[in-house]
């Protein structure tokens, strides 16, 4: 809770400091706020008596690791995107404080124990992102992205509220613990509850960009400023997936027969839609968008498994995914190509070996090549699902095989030695070097974390 407040306050402070037109001060505020927030959370991990539980919001150990990851990703995003934010010094504060506000919502979504709090968190998370997606005001695509995301997001929120109302009608409570008791007793089971659960699931799947609710994904990802794409793929996805896991794996577990079949089908659909559509993409961010759809498919396998291990498995998965996406997004910022073609990455990895190294690490991690974090995440999610849903895992593995094709094609473009002569020499700033280094270390080591 203290971390939540710190982040919110640092967002407000950053907004006001931006009136000085000194981007560096805004950045410093945000980074200090985030570092303090991370520090407070880590402190709670080591001193469990500090763990917080209040009506509607509770931070247990599971929430702490997810919050730390979300805050760390936001920190990397803000630091990596600073060169972009400071191009318009009068708006730097807005960008950064909107990200911080959105992060506040993400933390509410991670820590909720009440459907009402969850809804508030979701809105706090989403509204700044709608604005950020459309923040390249003179760019038509960015405006399209903002508008599209806002409209479809509003519909999804409406359906979520509607579903929540049905669930409330069936059970008479918003509180997760009471809900799970009532569901375990089985007294509330009936069409009212089931329709409510399915509506909530649809809205969740919309948020994480799973098929058949994925159509907003590629357009919004491609239209938004690169760094916001990175934020959506890492932090928003993390909050959405964890909220989903918390609600479905722990609360709706007694009625899992009802929703697991539907989720099974949608996971299969998501993986195939994401991977097959990614095969023929020529734009970098659209590729990333479809890859993120397929990754949502793999990640959704964790909530399918009603087990305490799912929480940790999903975390490792999202950690590897987040580091990889942030590294790629920061590299795309450094390359700074308006056309966003994959071809514009020709030879840059050969010409700039260190950037090439990070790029290869992140793409191979997305493809699931050991010993990178992406492999461990995938392995843990898949293997825990194997005992219950072997067919699903086999389909997921087939999809990983399909995925290698487009990941490898990207690597081959970036590393091609013929084009290395014409490739530009990239000059990232110190902050970007730092972000890339942290991402590389994260990709190499985070798979070995045991708690």
């Amino acid at each position, binding site marked *: 809770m203290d971390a939540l407040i710190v982040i919110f306050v640092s967002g407000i402070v950053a907004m006001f400091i931006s009136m000085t037109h000194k981007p560096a001060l805004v950045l410093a505020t945000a980074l200090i706020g985030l570092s303090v927030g991370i520090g407070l959370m880590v402190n709670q991990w080591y001193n469990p008596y500090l763990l917080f539980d209040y009506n509607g919001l509770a931070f247990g150990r599971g929430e702490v690791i997810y919050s730390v990851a979300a805050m760390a990703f936001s920190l990397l995003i803000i630091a990596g995107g600073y060169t972009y934010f400071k191009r318009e010094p009068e708006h730097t504060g807005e960008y950064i404080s909107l990200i911080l506000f959105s992060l506040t919502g993400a933390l509410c979504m991670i820590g909720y124990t009440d459907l009402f709090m969850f809804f508030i968190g979701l809105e706090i998370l989403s509204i700044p992102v709608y604005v950020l997606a459309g923040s390249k005001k003179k760019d038509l695509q960015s405006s399209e992205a903002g508008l599209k995301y806002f409209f479809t997001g509003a519909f999804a929120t409406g359906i979520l509220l509607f579903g929540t109302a049905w669930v409330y009608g069936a059970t008479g409570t918003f509180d997760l613990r009471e809900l799970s008791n009532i569901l375990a007793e089985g007294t509330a089971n009936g069409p009212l509850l089931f329709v409510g659960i399915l509506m909530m699931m649809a809205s969740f799947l919309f948020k994480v960009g799973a098929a058949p609710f994925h159509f907003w994904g590629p357009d919004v990802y491609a239209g938004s400023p690169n760094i916001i794409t990175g934020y959506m793929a890492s932090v928003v996805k993390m909050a959405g997936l964890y909220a989903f896991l918390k609600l479905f794996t722990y609360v709706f577990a007694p009625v899992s027969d009802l929703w697991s079949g539907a989720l099974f089908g949608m996971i299969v659909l998501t993986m195939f839609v994401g991977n097959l559509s990614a095969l023929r993409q020529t734009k970098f961010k659209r590729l990333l968008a479809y890859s993120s759809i397929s990754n949502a498919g793999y990640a959704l396998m964790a909530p399918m498994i009603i087990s305490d291990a799912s929480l940790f498995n999903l975390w490792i998965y999202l950690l590897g995914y987040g580091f990889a996406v942030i590294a790629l997004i920061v590299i795309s910022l450094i390359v700074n190509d308006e056309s966003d073609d994959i071809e514009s990455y020709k030879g840059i990895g050969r010409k700039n070996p260190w950037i090439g190294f990070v790029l290869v690490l992140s793409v191979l991690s997305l493809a699931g090549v050991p010993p990178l974090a992406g*492999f461990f995440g995938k392995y843990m999610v898949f293997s*825990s699902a*194997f005992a219950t849903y072997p067919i699903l895992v086999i389909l997921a*593995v087939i999809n990983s095989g399909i995925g290698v094709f487009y990941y490898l094609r990207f690597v081959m473009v970036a590393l091609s030695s013929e084009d290395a002569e014409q490739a530009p020499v990239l000059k990232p700033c110190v902050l970007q070097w730092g972000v890339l280094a942290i991402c590389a270390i994260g990709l190499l080591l985070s798979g070995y974390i*045991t708690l």
Partner: protein
Amino acid sequence: MELFALPLVFALIALVAPKSKVNYVGLIGAVVSMVVSFIHVAFFSPDQYVSLFAPDFMLTFGLTFKMGYDGIGLFMVVLTNVITTLILLSNLNREIAHNRAFNALVLLMQFGLLGVFTAMDGIMFYIFWELTLVPIFLISYWFGSADRKKPLMKFFIYTFVGSLAMLLSFMALGTYSSSFAYEDLLAVQLTAKTAFWVMCGFFLAFAIKIPLFPFHTWQPDTYTVSPMAGTMLLSALMLKMALYGMVRWMIPIAPEAMDTLSCLVITLGMIGVVYAAVIAIKQSDIKRLFAFASISHVGLIAAGIMLFNKDALAGAFIQIANHSLVALGLFLAADILERRMGTRNMYEMGGVAKLAPKFGFWFAAVAFASVSVPLTSGFIGEFLLIKGLYNYSWIVGLVAGTTLVLGAVYTLRAYQISMFGAPKAEAFSDLTWNEMLTFFIIMLIILVLGIYPQVIIDFVGPSLDLTIESVKGTKVIVQ
């Protein structure tokens, strides 16, 4: 620890070494690892298991990080180190060797291979197995010929998908076992049906890497477009991972499925032996010819391994060593021809033996070793394998025997067309000292092993006995 970690250290050194000396850095790295492995051999008695790395923690899903070796493992380690040294030695004077990335990648590859051969944990094995794919891909991609993109993509996807099948098998095993440590996996008792699918997963991964008959289509193209060092790494070392994997992982872990699958694998191996040899006879591209020859030879080894008796396995290991050395020699010869004649087409070569008598002699020696004439190690290896296959079924033995005849046809034909006849080039510079030294070491080892093969049999024998015992001791539960 130093046994498998040294190449990684030298790979990092090679990345920062000055460009003019980096070829020596690479070679020294390989030689140092080789000497270290010899020291390990000196303190090793074949019936013991040596643990290299065994931390007392494991990851939540059962990864234990265990590494160690027995006779089989150490044999493969020594083979890897010797072959890597020879590869770097044969490249020493070439332009490619002055590239930092090249030396680092070869050493990284060596690190991955040593990891594969010393991993005593299923997931560790998988990690190192995949780790080798990246350096070999980059070596071929950065230093290969101009038309390399498509074949390499096929190669990467093919092998990666195969490995995923192996990963599925490990996942299935993981549901029965508390950790992935080798002895825990061995202790798992599978039903015949589960064992069948587990073995199929392993088999797909290994069959693609070896490659066995219907899974071989990536191989000739990839061998052709790779630079010499890449081809050597692929044929001399990378496919040996798969043969080793069959002996160490596939069969001991799922012995329950042996009866069902061995017939299939032996048949595929035999088809590969004849099919690849016939195609090799019709080739005009010398590198492609040796690529098909490689398919033909390893098909026989894979079939022999599936028999899983002492003689056949001993033969398989002799043949593994022999094939590595011969492939090294043949691809070196092919590359020397390609480089100095400017073509891979045998019909545009000719008369080289007159222009370069030293090269003519050493190429002939390697060619004869490839044909398995007596006194070379190939003779012993193939003899043991064919004998085993003949005992399995006389038809199989007969088909396996054709490898000797067909092998002689395509190898000697290649030699004759490229080396004899009227000279088609004005000048052909003879071997440089490092090429000569490479050929000399290759032939020396081949002859020593041919005259005294017992040295390999004694070295891997006790470990093989243990493995065979564990496989034979498994009862099959039919459900």
